[in-house]
């Protein structure tokens, strides 16, 4: 019993970490219809900024997160303006080509300037303690991540489903030319959404750094995982992404506990099973 509970809580934490990193990608892929394989690259950039802020500038954790998000968005602005704007509405594979290229560049540049070693973002005292939850201890940081994930999910859902901005964004993605003809400034809508997605990537990269440590190859190393999770959830669906993260987190965690040798088997077998049952992902938007 204790073991089951313990695994469940690990699964929840792992799922939420996945969620917080992936949700920005779900937004870009599902709503902006940009297969942004460079998502991880932005998360990584944020990680480097946060690490720099915390270790070299001596800022606190919260301030580092804030600086990382702002910094990453600032870096992304020219990229949006000159690169991404060209591929909105292009075929997915063209987007794949460009964003992989971008990822390569980011990796190369980071490697050159920051060196290939791991970077850590020191946690504040409160978050770095293991916390006793009765039957076992769990890192306080994990609870923090769970909370962040929940907050992000709620806020984003409201923004997309309930605000006029969300409606305009979805309309733009559905048919940009027509939105334009109805007076929606589509470029502005895209730019703002892109900034939000990047901000989320940055947040995920920084608070998830305990699990997925920051190093130059980060951008490619976790690309597949992100892509899989987002698609299984149904790109663009926040509840879908949440369900996918929790389910896959659970399968992965239990699989690794029960039969560690076959850990990947369970994960990908689950993916195949889910996709066969839900051919558009859990809550994919119908096309």
């Amino acid at each position, binding site marked *: 019993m204790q073991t089951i509970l313990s695994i469940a809580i690990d699964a929840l934490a792992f799922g939420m970490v996945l969620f917080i990193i992936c949700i920005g990608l779900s937004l870009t892929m599902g709503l902006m219809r940009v297969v942004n394989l460079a998502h991880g690259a932005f998360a990584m950039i944020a990680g480097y900024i946060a690490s720099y802020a915390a270790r070299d500038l001596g800022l606190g954790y919260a301030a580092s997160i804030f600086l990382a998000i702002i910094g990453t968005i600032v870096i992304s602005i020219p990229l949006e303006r000159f690169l991404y704007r060209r591929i909105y509405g292009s075929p997915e594979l063209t987007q*794949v080509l460009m964003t992989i*290229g971008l990822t390569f*560049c980011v990796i190369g*540049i980071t490697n050159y300037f920051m060196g290939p070693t791991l970077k850590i973002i020191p946690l504040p005292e409160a978050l770095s303690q293991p916390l006793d939850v009765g039957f076992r201890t769990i890192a306080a940081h994990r609870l923090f991540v769970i909370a962040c994930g929940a907050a992000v999910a709620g806020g984003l859902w409201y923004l997309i489903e309930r605000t006029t901005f969300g409606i305009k964004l979805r309309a733009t993605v559905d048919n940009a030319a027509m939105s334009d003809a109805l007076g929606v400034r589509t470029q502005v809508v895209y730019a703002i959404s892109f900034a939000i997605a990047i901000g989320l990537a940055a947040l995920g990269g920084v608070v998830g750094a305990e699990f997925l440590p920051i190093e130059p190859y980060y951008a490619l190393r976790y690309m597949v995982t992100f892509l*899989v999770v987002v698609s299984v959830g149904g790109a663009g669906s926040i509840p879908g992404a949440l369900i996918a993260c929790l389910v896959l987190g659970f399968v992965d965690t239990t699989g690794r506990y029960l039969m560690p*040798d076959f850990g990947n088997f369970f994960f990908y077998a689950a*993916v195949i099973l889910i*996709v*066969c049952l*839900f051919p558009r992902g859990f809550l994919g938007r119908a096309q």
Partner: protein
Amino acid sequence: MHIMAQAGTVSAMPDAKSHLWRDAAGIALISACGAAGYWLFPDNLALLTRIVAVALLVLSIDLVVGYCGVATLGQAALFGAGAYAAGIACVNGVTEPMTLIAIGAIAGAAAGLLMGGVMLRAHGLAQLVLSIAIVQLFHEAANKASAYTGGSDGLAGLMVSPLFGLFEFDLWGRTAYLMGLVLLLLVFIALKFVVASPFGMLCRGIKQDPVRIRAMGAFVFPVLLKMFVISGAVAGTGGALAAVSTQVVGLDSVSFELSANALVMLVLGGLGTLYGALIGTVIFMGFEHVVSAFNPFHWMTMVGALLIAVVLAAPGGLTSLVGKVAASRQGKP
């Protein structure tokens, strides 16, 4: 795109005969390039052979992505199936190279049947993810079955007997390259026939609107599955060629990375023409080779820059540039 399309309507639409001529010219050009590679870079034949093997893989991706619209990031599963089948057969005493290639092709086709059977249940992104899951499972299986595959150490010690009993697979790789080149040409010609057949046209239709195809009274699933099998055979041939020419098979040949790279090469060259697959492979691998020799430490940035530049200059892939140039000539009378 408009420009290119318009060019077709301005000039008289090429009919069946001129299509044939164009393909004949294309194939002659490819043979010439292949032969030129042999004479110009006699010291790089190992690389060129590898390019040929990967070109087969990229061609096979073009069949499903470019002609059927089924996105896949798992094609290396088929390549790897061919490579391992040939490798295992070779270790177990089948050493005749053409037999090994045939074994690879059959194994690839079988893997294609399996993969198609699973992947064609889903659509869009979900489909892409299925392909990733499949290649990861293949990878894992190859790692686990180390008694047969050598696991992560790779399957080494392939002793391939001389081609037709005459030509050794030597250090310089001449035999391997020429054999690969001939294989590639044969496959390319065969595929040109496939895509120009009614079956090929049906696939293009399915790519655009499967509902419409069904309303025309044609089944979608068996057609796509057939294409997967063909594509598997082509990928398997590539895998077997890689195994025969390098005499080792590693886990990288069933990896996601290889699949992804191959897809990138295809998109770089341009989808749905077969030529794009060849151009993309040669440019990508050639460029990578040159810059990584030039600067082994930071070449990745340059490859990235190349990809971005291609998207900005020729979003439809390098082959679309050819069309553009032709169109702009005609556009200015």
